[in-house]
């Protein structure tokens, strides 16, 4: 291994380096020492630390143990001496100056321990910095730790170390380069800014992605040191953004976020690449990228809920306030809006949603949260739901994670309650939860409450009220109050429950209940004078000021409901007035004022008395209030016009309070952010932009190569390839010459053996080394080349071989071109299948070179024939191997023996592989392919002319698609009308609507001239008639095709009895029933014809029926299994009625249309 070798050599270099550096360092130190004595340097710092030190000394002295005692004795010694004589570390200095690494190491360890405890070790700087070039790696590392910590304080001395790092930047070992850059950029000394800038620039175009990653890390460091450099740094960021490695992506986006988050234009060209790379980026990078892309998407795409947002808002309103008319208006408005602007999602928007979705399964809570917020802010409403499950899963995590997740869930539940409703019980509270978690869970439960689940929630709440945790009980009572205000049905129940709590022994509970009851009563006071009376009685016992104040307010507000009690209460309160809390006093004054206005006869004197008391109160608020109220209510000559309106002022009808969540409207902060958590803008928070009104130009994301949008990933991969030499300069593939004379550490022997057949051994060994560098997909290519090689070999050996003939004729030229083309196809992300059969053979050959050639030939010949079923198994094994190669390293060897026996979950695969071994022909295997019968309509997928000789037709075979029962089986027939063979027929790049899935057919290796072949693929159309778009690729061309299913093919027959049918039909009435009158066509003379017509239109089965005048059919949709019931009762004279019952109304409507057409012909 080269790195190892280099490392072993390193000390030799390092020794020289050390000598020279030490020489320099010492020289300089001597020169500087008069100025920079250890004593004078760190004075400032010392002052800062002094109190801290004293504290420790004290704690050590008093506690006897304190901090010091836990330390190792050796350390302790050193530290106590530090504490008592802080500026003398003579022993350490001595050790650092010694020649022995072990002593140096020990000294450094002690120094680091000091730093870790916050002790000052800055006076050792000169002694430590000398060791920066020490050859011992650990000493070196610890010196780095020290340097980074103290360089800022000892700028001049720190400069001594710079030259070491500059040298390190040029080291042949990438890790040394990276580490040098890391430390260099961490030394916060302004004077080296130009050096850093230069180093970063250089590192940004380093061969090694690891060094480039370090460069990305260094950018924010430099930026914070000297913001002047911003423009130059942005250039570097731009450059690194274009980098194609996953290693760099996270770090550079981080740098982007820190240096120039507003330069969104830099992202355009890299957007698709970032989306595609995302899944392979390390966890932390994923979080940063996702957050950045969220912001990006908000500026670049249209709101996917543009048509729904209005609807949603209005329905939300309807829930709280029942303002129906306005509601109607808005709905109508929204509806018109919807009609006006049909929303089509930008494919790039879709790309982002699709590529982030699997990350919901990450083990890292931060990643899951990042995806969740992305979906919340960007996804169409219907799709947001998928995040709920993942978020609920996080609730099992550490309590801190729970805390943050619950905060975000609380915000989400306000906007999208339905999403979390199925997980209601996951928010139930355990007595062992920390209080802060309990309260957040309560918040969520309250937000989730609605008419249907309120009874269960209230039952839960009842148990909570008995908890020992009083804060939690108080929160529970508030929660009950909120449920009661929001859900009218349970208001009385809640109120009764709360009233019962008034007799609770715990005062806090009672007080909280009073406060909540007050709010509830405000909504309908007339009916509840009993409760008010009851509460009036309570006032003698309740001491909690807030509760007392609430009761007084209630009595005052509704004094006409309790005319007898109110004056009495006032009398009692007047007695205790001076001892009350301010808040109670204010309410006493209020009560007095209101009673004076309504019942002045009884309360005039009392009021005077209270106001007099208040006049001399210590609190100026109370004095003010008293003065103000006296002027208002007691008519005097001087009193102005206002006193006439006193009654109106005091006894105005007050709107009931809306008890709403504190999490309302928090979603204007980006979820998952610190600002959202604090509900306040944190420094450096990037606002989540509003959706743009009109769509910005989507073409900005297109990259130079015009067909980028069609084959993003392919380009991507290609780029990767060219960038390969970055991996290591000496290992680069800059040509046969270089690799030939470079270290002979090329890979496995078998490869180099086979390489002798290739044109030059140079390029081969270079390739095998590429493999050790384990680029993504490299393996594929490698194999591909091998395969090609094999082919060539076979060709060379057997020129007459049939399958090789055409290629043979075209010669090397052709081969090169072919390889390129194949490479492209191979690397395409979606279907990475290549002609598996031949490949696996090649591999087996690779394994055993001795294998007889004739055998190979026979198998070669067979491959084009035995196509259909073996492919399923092979696809499996193929996939296996290819994914492996995604991750593989040098010592990967194909395991052809084990690969095909991968457990495959769909039928007959193992059987098929057996069959394959027996070399059966397709005659026997034919039954799995359903020959298109006459009744099944064929559709054209690719015309002979557009397909350049390749004609493709498809039909819906109406067979269940065995690998996935939720997919519609589509049978595809390829016909090769050219006179040369077409190879590697496969599917690439499906462009699907959300939720749609494709299971591709296995690649067709070779389609000989004039032949045709039929394969079956599965498509999950998600019960929509949206077309599935994809590319059909041959070895030379790609064709865009799409399959759009007629609605009738989206279903599969089910067999129901007449009773079942009626029962099911009964469930699907109303909106789900679509009925249409029609006239039967001339030919629809009897039942038989009708049945035939209907079943031809839709894949339904007939349901037995007693009457002859009625035909019934039943089926269910393939994807979601919704029942589809069709009834056609005929009447006299060709009239008939068609009824379709289906939960999916769209399906029903379309089906009615289609059947109508079929029947009326």
């Amino acid at each position: 291994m080269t790195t190892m070798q280099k490392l072993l050599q390193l000390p030799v270099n390092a020794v020289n380096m050390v000598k020279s550096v030490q020489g320099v360092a010492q020289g300089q130190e001597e020169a500087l020492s008069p100025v920079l004595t250890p004593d004078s340097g760190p004075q400032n710092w010392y002052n800062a630390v002094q109190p801290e030190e004293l504290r420790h000394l004290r704690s050590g002295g008093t506690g006897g143990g304190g901090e010091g005692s836990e330390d190792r004795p050796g350390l302790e010694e050193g530290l106590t001496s530090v504490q008592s004589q802080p500026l003398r570390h003579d022993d350490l200095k001595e050790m650092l100056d010694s020649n022995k690494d072990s002593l140096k190491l020990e000294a450094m360890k002690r120094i680091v321990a000091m730093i870790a405890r916050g002790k000052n070790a800055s006076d050792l700087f000169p002694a430590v910095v000398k060791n920066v070039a020490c050859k011992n790696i650990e000493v070196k590392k610890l010196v780095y730790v020290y340097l980074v910590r103290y360089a800022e304080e000892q700028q001049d001395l720190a400069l001594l170390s710079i030259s070491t790092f500059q040298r390190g930047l040029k080291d042949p070992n990438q890790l040394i380069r990276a580490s040098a850059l890391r430390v260099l950029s961490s030394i916060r000394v302004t004077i080296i800014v130009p050096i850093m800038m230069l180093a970063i620039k250089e590192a940004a175009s380093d061969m090694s992605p690891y060094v480039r990653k370090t460069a990305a890390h260094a950018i924010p460091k430099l930026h914070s040191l000297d913001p002047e450099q911003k423009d130059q740094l942005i250039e570097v960021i731009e450059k690194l953004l274009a980098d194609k490695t996953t290693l760099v992506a996270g770090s550079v986006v981080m740098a982007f976020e820190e240096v120039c988050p507003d330069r969104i234009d830099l992202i355009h060209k890299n957007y698709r690449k970032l989306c595609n790379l995302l899944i392979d980026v390390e966890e932390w990078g994923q979080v940063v990228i996702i957050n950045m892309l969220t912001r990006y998407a908000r500026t670049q795409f249209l709101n996917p809920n543009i048509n729904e947002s209005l609807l949603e808002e209005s329905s939300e309103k309807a829930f709280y306030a029942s303002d129906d008319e306005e509601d109607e208006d808005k709905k109508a408005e929204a509806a018109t809006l919807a009609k006006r602007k049909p929303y089509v999602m930008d494919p790039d928007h879709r790309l982002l949603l699709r590529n982030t979705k699997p990350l919901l399964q990450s083990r890292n809570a931060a990643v899951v949260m990042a995806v969740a917020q992305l979906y919340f802010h960007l996804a169409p409403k219907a799709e947001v739901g998928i995040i709920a499950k993942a978020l609920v899963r996080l609730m099992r995590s550490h309590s801190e994670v729970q805390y943050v997740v619950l905060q975000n869930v609380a915000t989400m539940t306000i906007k999208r309650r339905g999403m979390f409703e199925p997980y209601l019980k996951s928010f139930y509270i355990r007595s062992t939860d920390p209080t802060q978690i309990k309260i957040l869970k309560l918040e969520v439960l309250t937000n989730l409450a609605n008419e249907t689940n309120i009874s269960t929630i209230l039952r839960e709440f009842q148990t909570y009220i008995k908890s020992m945790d009083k804060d939690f009980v108080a929160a529970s009572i508030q929660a009950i109050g909120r449920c009661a205000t929001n859900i009218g049905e349970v208001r009385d129940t809640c109120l009764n429950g709360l009233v019962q709590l008034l007799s609770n022994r715990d005062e806090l509970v009672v007080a909280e209940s009073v406060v909540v009851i007050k709010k509830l009563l405000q909504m309908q006071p007339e009916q509840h004078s009993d409760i008010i009376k009851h509460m009036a009685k309570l006032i003698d016992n309740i001491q909690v000021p807030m509760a007392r104040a609430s009761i007084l307010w209630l009595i005052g507000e509704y004094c006409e409901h309790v005319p007898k009690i109110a004056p009495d209460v006032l009398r009692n309160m007047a007695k205790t007035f001076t001892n009350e809390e301010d808040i109670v006093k204010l309410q006493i004054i209020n009560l007095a004022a209101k009673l004076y206005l309504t019942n002045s006869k009884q309360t005039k004197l009392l009021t005077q008395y209270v106001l007099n008391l208040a006049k001399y109160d210590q609190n100026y608020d109370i004095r003010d209030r008293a003065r103000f109220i006296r002027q208002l209510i007691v008519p005097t000559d001087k009193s102005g016009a206002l006193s006439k309106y006193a009654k109106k002022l005091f006894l105005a009808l007050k709107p009931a309070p809306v008890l709403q969540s504190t999490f309302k409207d928090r979603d204007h902060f980006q979820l998952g952010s610190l600002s959202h958590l604090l509900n306040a803008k944190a420094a450096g928070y990037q606002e989540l932009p509003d959706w743009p009104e009109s769509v910005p130009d989507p073409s900005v994301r297109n990259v130079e190569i015009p067909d980028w949008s069609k084959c993003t990933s392919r380009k991507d991969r290609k780029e990767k390839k060219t960038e390969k030499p970055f991996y290591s300069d000496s290992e680069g593939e800059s040509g046969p010459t270089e690799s030939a004379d470079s270290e002979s550490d090329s890979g496995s022997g078998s490869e180099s053996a086979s390489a002798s057949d290739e044109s030059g051994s140079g390029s081969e060994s270079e390739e095998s080394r590429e493999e050790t560098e384990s680029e993504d997909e490299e393996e594929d290519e490698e194999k591909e080349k091998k395969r090609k090689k094999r082919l060539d070999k076979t060709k060379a050996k057997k020129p007459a071989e049939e399958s090789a003939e055409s290629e043979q004729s075209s010669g090397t030229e052709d081969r090169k071109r072919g390889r390129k083309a194949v490479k492209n196809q191979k690397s395409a992300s979606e279907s990475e299948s290549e002609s598996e059969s031949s490949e696996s053979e090649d591999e087996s050959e690779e394994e055993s070179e001795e294998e007889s050639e004739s055998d190979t030939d026979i198998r070669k010949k067979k491959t084009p024939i035995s196509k259909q079923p073996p492919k399923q198994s092979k696809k499996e094994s193929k996939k296996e191997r290819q994914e492996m190669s995604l991750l593989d390293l040098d010592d990967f060897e194909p395991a052809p023996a084990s690969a095909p026996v991968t457990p495959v979950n769909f039928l007959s695969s193992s059987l098929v592989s057996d069959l394959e071994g027996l070399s059966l022909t397709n005659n026997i295997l034919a039954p799995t392919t359903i020959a298109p019968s006459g009744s099944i309509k064929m559709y054209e997928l690719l015309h002979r002319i557009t397909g350049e000789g390749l004609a493709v037709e498809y039909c819906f075979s109406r067979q269940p698609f065995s690998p996935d029962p939720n997919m519609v089986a589509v049978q595809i027939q390829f016909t090769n009308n050219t006179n040369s063979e077409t190879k590697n027929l496969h599917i690439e790049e499906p462009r699907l609507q959300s939720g749609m899935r494709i299971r591709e057919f296995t690649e067709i290796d070779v389609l000989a001239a004039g032949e045709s072949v039929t394969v079956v693929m599965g498509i999950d159309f998600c019960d929509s008639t949206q077309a599935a778009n994809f590319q059909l690729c041959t070895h030379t061309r790609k064709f865009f095709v799409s399959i759009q299913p007629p609605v009738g093919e989206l279903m599969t027959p089910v067999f129901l009895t007449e009773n079942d049918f009626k029962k099911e039909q009964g469930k699907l009435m109303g909106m789900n029933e679509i009925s249409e009158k029609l006239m039967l066509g001339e030919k629809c003379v009897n039942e038989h014809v009708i049945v035939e017509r209907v079943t031809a239109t839709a894949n339904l089965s007939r349901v037995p029926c007693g009457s002859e005048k009625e035909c019934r059919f039943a089926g269910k949709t393939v994807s979601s299994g919704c029942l589809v019931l069709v009834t056609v009762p005929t009447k006299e004279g060709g009239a008939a009625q068609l009824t379709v019952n289906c939960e999916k109304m769209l399906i029903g409507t379309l089906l009615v249309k289609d059947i109508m057409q079929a029947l009326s012909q």
Partner: protein
Amino acid sequence: MPVLDITLKDNALIMIHSLFLINNAGDLFLEKHWKSVISRSVCDYFFEAREKAVEPDNVPPVIRTPHHYLINIYREKIFFVSVIQTEVPPLFVIEFLHRVAETFQDYFGECSESTIKDNVVIVYELLEEMLDNGFPLATESNILKELIRPPTILRSMVNTITGSSNVGETLPTGQLSTIPWRRAGVKYTNNEAYFDVVEEIDAILDKSGTTVFAEIQGVIDACVKLSGMPDLTLSFMNPRLLDDVSFHPCVRYKRWESERVISFVPPDGNFQLMSYHISAQNLVAIPVYVKQNISFFETGSSGRLDITVGPKQTMGKTVEGLVVTVHMPKVVLSANLNATQGTYNYDPVTKILVWDIGKLNPQKLPNLKGSLSLQSGAPKPEENPSLNIDLKIQQLAISGLKVNRLDMYGEKYKPFKGVKYVTKAGKFQVRT
């Protein structure tokens, strides 16, 4: 926000600025700064919050101070307090801090104040590698172990004698591969792969014994010691059970999506392969039932307690390690009980009653019965304490999940493979 003070002027954005480790007694015993030093006085805000919270659990994970934000976690009786200056996803920091704690645990066997202090140099080196300028750099245990070798007793002895170091002499290759979690050149004489399927039942049962809420939290912990670069595929007999899963980054999402198999190149050593969650209540078997009667009398300041535990749905396996924990109301002074099996202990300070039963014998059900004495004069407690159950069932995954097979590709040797199933009680609570 007020204008940041002068020391911050050059500190633009940085994710995690500093880290302080604080023990339960409030001693700050380690600090690490990734940029310029932030005075430890910033922790005063934390101490304030800590005091207010009473319980360490209740310290808010995010504390706002005038110039900084403190994001902290509490783990193994240590507070990890990080200082943040600018907007950052809080979970990012929390998750990272947990990763730090896990790394310590991994390195030193446990993550405690004393081990951290004993290994302060390694801790520092680890922190240095894990964060660069506040941004996570190397957090995978396999890479870290290549950079910094974990201490072992033997090696620390050898090191003291020979003066050699803990730092790897060679530099890691891991960062350079596309498999950041696996180190290259792994060699074992015995190639083994063990998988522990551990399921925890989270449940809330109400007074009458009906299930209010139940779900299963499962994890598959792996210990893989295989040479070279093995590519493993783990398949289940009944993968449909697994409704909600999360994976170690080594697992290929797409294979799971399409085939419901777990295909991965494993990290070397111990790791958690996946976790899953089964929330459908009808799938969750409740292995034991509890009959309880706890009552407090209005007069005489005493109470009665009577708890019986019996087997419910144990799938024919023995329930072991049965422990019942009761958090008593504050007024309960002592308990005078009689256990037919196992031992009980009431701690009058924490008010926790622990009844350690051990193995559950279905023939003779364990019972704990007796009287509680309350503080005289205090009103009787309103609430009844809930019971927390702990238990263990060996050789059983309560959800019925079964591993079908493990296949290895990419290497030629035959590994030894083992799967173990354990069911435990998670947050299993009986309300009374």
